[in-house]
């Protein structure tokens, strides 16, 4: 069995302000995770320089730089190229989910999400990632 640190720091990139607020409460206040929320891809990528995220939660449809473009940037970043990235999206049809996974995301969470279980869900994804 592999030994790894537990999940503590999550970066969430989401353009919808209201969803950022509720997710922040769900992950930080309820879930006990050290969470940094950013409103855009460029803002999120900049935050990674000072916030050593262990897992990145990423919205798909965002103005300017969309989720897949952000993922591509993350994969090109030496420090974060192996960091698990989870898409969170309201595009929930099976083919859409498959397409997102094929881009190299580790998991896809659909919107609306379950706020009370969200942190645990990310911890499960984190454990699966280290088991794989």
């Amino acid at each position, binding site marked *: 069995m592999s030994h790894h640190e537990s999940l503590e720091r999550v970066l969430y990139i989401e*353009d*919808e302000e*209201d*969803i950022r*607020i*509720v*997710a922040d*409460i*769900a992950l930080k*206040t*309820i879930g006990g995770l050290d969470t940094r929320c950013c409103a855009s891809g460029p803002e999120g990528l900049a935050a990674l320089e000072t916030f050593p995220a262990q897992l990145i939660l990423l919205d*798909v*449809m*965002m*103005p*300017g730089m*969309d*989720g*897949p473009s952000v993922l591509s940037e993350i994969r090109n970043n030496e420090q974060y190229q192996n960091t698990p990235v989870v898409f969170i*999206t*309201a*595009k*929930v*049809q099976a083919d*859409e989910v498959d397409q997102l996974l094929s881009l190299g995301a580790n998991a896809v969470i659909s*919107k*609306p*999400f*379950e*706020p*009370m279980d969200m942190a645990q869900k990310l911890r499960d994804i984190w454990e699966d990632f280290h088991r794989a």
Partner: protein
Amino acid sequence: MPKPDAVTDLLNRSKAILETMVDGVITINNKGLIDTVNPAAERIFGYQSRELLGRNVSMLMPSPYREEHDGYIHNYLTTGTKKVIDIGREVRGQRKNGDIFPMELAVSEMLIKGERMFTGIVRDISERKDTEEKLREAMRRVHEQRIKDEFISTVSHELRTPLTSIKASLDILKSGALTNDPEKSGTLIDIAQKNSERLLLLINDILDISKIESEKMQYRITRIPLRSFLETAISDNRVYGDKYQVRYVLGECPDHLTIDVDPDRMMQVMSNLLSNAAKFSPLNTEVYVSAEETEHGVRIVVKDQGKGIPEEFQPHIFEKFTQADSSNQRAIGGTGLGLHISKAIVEHHEGELSFNSSVKNGTEFYIDLRKKDRTGAYNVTP
């Protein structure tokens, strides 16, 4: 000189070729009268050869080619201008039973005993055309289905977005996790309420789109004074302008102008244009509303001082969900349906919704309504 046996053999071979050809072969003289036909031509057009020989070949053509055919030959014989001779082309033929069908026709010219004759080779391409048409129809259906699927997927996404905030807020509040945090609880209540309103707007817009597409939208056209209509539009939307710290200003609008419109629907268009203008205006700027008489009617103008609409986005501005297109990019706010609905409403009034936008001068939207007729309903009272 070939021997008689060889001549007979050659004739037999030529005859066999002509009689077994899939394509029809028809020869005509310089007056357009049919000289010979092969069995395939009989089969294609549905005539016996005796019904064709000596008759004008134009009988195998539908109107208006039938009437024009003699002119073609005459024109060629006098001017040398070729329309079909030596040029294969697709034309229409007419069978004995009246059916008109597509065919490929290749005509060549020859001299027999000093007389100019023409040979037409006819290929019936009905089946091929039919297959092509079926293929086109199938592709059109696939395309329509794909558009429908994309629309449903986008609608689903757009509905889920506010629902995410509403559901998550209510789930958290219900869990009691924030019982001791009235500030955060208040924030979540506000979020749930705000997104419920957003959801309602979206549902209304989707219903409008559905009504427009099924042509079930009701319009009650009445004549109204334009100036007071614009004043109402501004006062009704003032709260929205305040939200974005933008002031709506009524500019020039001649008092005598009236318009024949459904006031509620046209107000919906104005609200959409005014809210868009406010959203994309810098803080503490003004959005100008004005109207003028034009050569063909009246033009309403809504002008902002924003940065303009990105050039690459301009061709798509009236499409559905243009803010949430397949590029996965979305501007903040709005349902992405407003301009599509507005354009449909204006066009129902036989008007036009257009815009002019530049980085330097901002964006101007124009509603052009034109005079309907000289005597009755005017969109402009001179």
